[in-house]
């Protein structure tokens, strides 16, 4: 550092600080854009693990689509899976599962993109099943409020308000109790 002149040093400082800050800003912008422009979908929250939903500062949320039937043989951990959601009543339910992105969906259907955690291949007696994550499974809560949310999940009273963009990327917009929006955080 001593061998380059001071002007270059300040330019370097500015480059590093702005590139890193720009990345963080991009993260925020991308998420804000997703939440404000994405398709709004309501998914029923189901208990994932009866032992401990509340882990530290976040509540683990499970959905209908966290476990989906598959017809494909071997699905590797980390591979991509598309689930088509269909609006039924107030909520959205899974309609079909595919490893390729379906095109030209009717307006009452939305695509959500997931990442395979585990998958079992179908056998002659049982269908295959995949455990999938969509990036909407962790809900960070203020300290001390996790237990309360956990109770609501246990009573199956909780719904999640999800925003999904055209590529199928999903984000949690808020949580709903008996149709009323709670925990909806402002964008900024």
């Amino acid at each position, binding site marked *: *550092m*001593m061998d*380059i002149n*001071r002007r270059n*040093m*300040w330019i*370097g*400082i500015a*480059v*590093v*600080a702005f*590139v*890193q*800050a720009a*990345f*963080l800003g991009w*993260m*925020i912008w991308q*998420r*804000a854009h997703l*939440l404000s422009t994405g398709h709004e979908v309501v998914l029923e929250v189901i208990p994932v693990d009866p032992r401990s939903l509340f882990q*530290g*500062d976040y509540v683990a949320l499970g959905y209908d689509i966290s476990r989906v039937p598959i017809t494909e043989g071997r699905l590797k*951990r*980390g591979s991509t899976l598309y689930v088509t959601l269909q609006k039924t009543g107030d909520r959205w339910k899974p309609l079909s599962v595919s490893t390729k992105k379906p095109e030209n969906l009717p307006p009452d259907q939305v695509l959500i993109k997931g*990442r395979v955690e585990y998958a079992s291949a179908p056998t002659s007696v049982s269908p295959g099943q995949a455990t999938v*994550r969509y*990036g*909407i*499974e*962790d*809900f*960070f809560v*203020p*300290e001390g409020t996790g237990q309360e949310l956990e109770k609501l999940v246990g009573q199956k009273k909780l719904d999640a308000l999800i925003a999904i963009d055209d590529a199928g990327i999903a*984000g*949690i917009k808020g949580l709903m109790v008996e149709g009323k929006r709670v925990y909806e*955080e*402002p964008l*900024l």
Partner: protein
Amino acid sequence: MSRYARRLDQDLARWREAGWLSADGEASIRRDVAGRSRSLEVAPVLGILGAVLIGFGAMSFVAAHWNEMARLLRLALIFSGLFGAYGLAGVLFDRDHPAFAHAAILTGVALFGAGIMLIAQMFHISGHAPDAVLTWALGALLAGIVLRSNPALALALLLMGLWSGWEMSDTNSVHWPFLIGWGAVAAAMLWREWIPGLHLAAIVLSIWVVTIGYFLLDGHGHGVVVAIGLIIAAVGLAGPVILGRWRTWGEAAIAYGMAIAFAGLFALQFIENPHLDNLILLAIVTLALVVGGIWIGLKNNNGSLLWLGYAGFSIEVLALYFKTVGTLLGSSLFFLSAGIIVILLAVAAYRLHSRVQPGVGAVP
């Protein structure tokens, strides 16, 4: 005073008493040594430690979840912390406090990582966690290259290791992209001509190579690890002889290669559960490797290789002891045969040594 200076101090007194050195000569040597000595100063070390602590402090904010603060305030805090740390680094460089400046850079890089985590938490982003670590590593690499900061490069290297380790434990298969990330950081260290950094890079790569033995060939790839280690050691052994230079690098390659091969052999013997006759064969190969390492260490007066050899020998013998307790091969029989093998090797080494350097008796 460094170890070298202390030893020289004793030698100078002895040489002057023997009449080999004039008082003037001694004074000149002492002045020269004092002028060149770069003892580790306390202040920069404390500065670095302080930066590490601040980094941990920022990250424990994630755990504490700082929910009392308004969202905008939290974001403002992340960004002002980032700019503040780098700005402080600039000011410190300007005032010729490079060590403190590097500590400030390290703080900046730590805050960048904390920022990724905090923003992910604020917006409930639960993506693929290793991707976040890779992003952090790239931020550290950028700071290391642009600001010519060795501590930032060291952090980038460790984060690359964390990234790869996480990916491997997640997917249960070898994570080849690590080599690209590692190569980028190692190239930056080479460009900086930062020797301790290159050793750190070699250690991280060695650990990675040993790790892939547990994932290659359905988890039985330790033989490949042994082969890679032996090739590295062979290159280190033959390279300087053929090229006539890079002796220090060659010796380093021997040490890393032998350590990798040893780790692979260790897994073959004690994790794979081989047949007894295979175990004996592998144990003999391992002991020969270790004794070979010690011998090269003695021959080249290379302390690190010597100590690696001693450590490897002790680990091997201890592991064999626990493995053979109560088996067909009695422990006493094993130690008897191992002892005989080592003594035979010692005799061979002694013969060779006295032939190369006549007049020199036992090795030190």
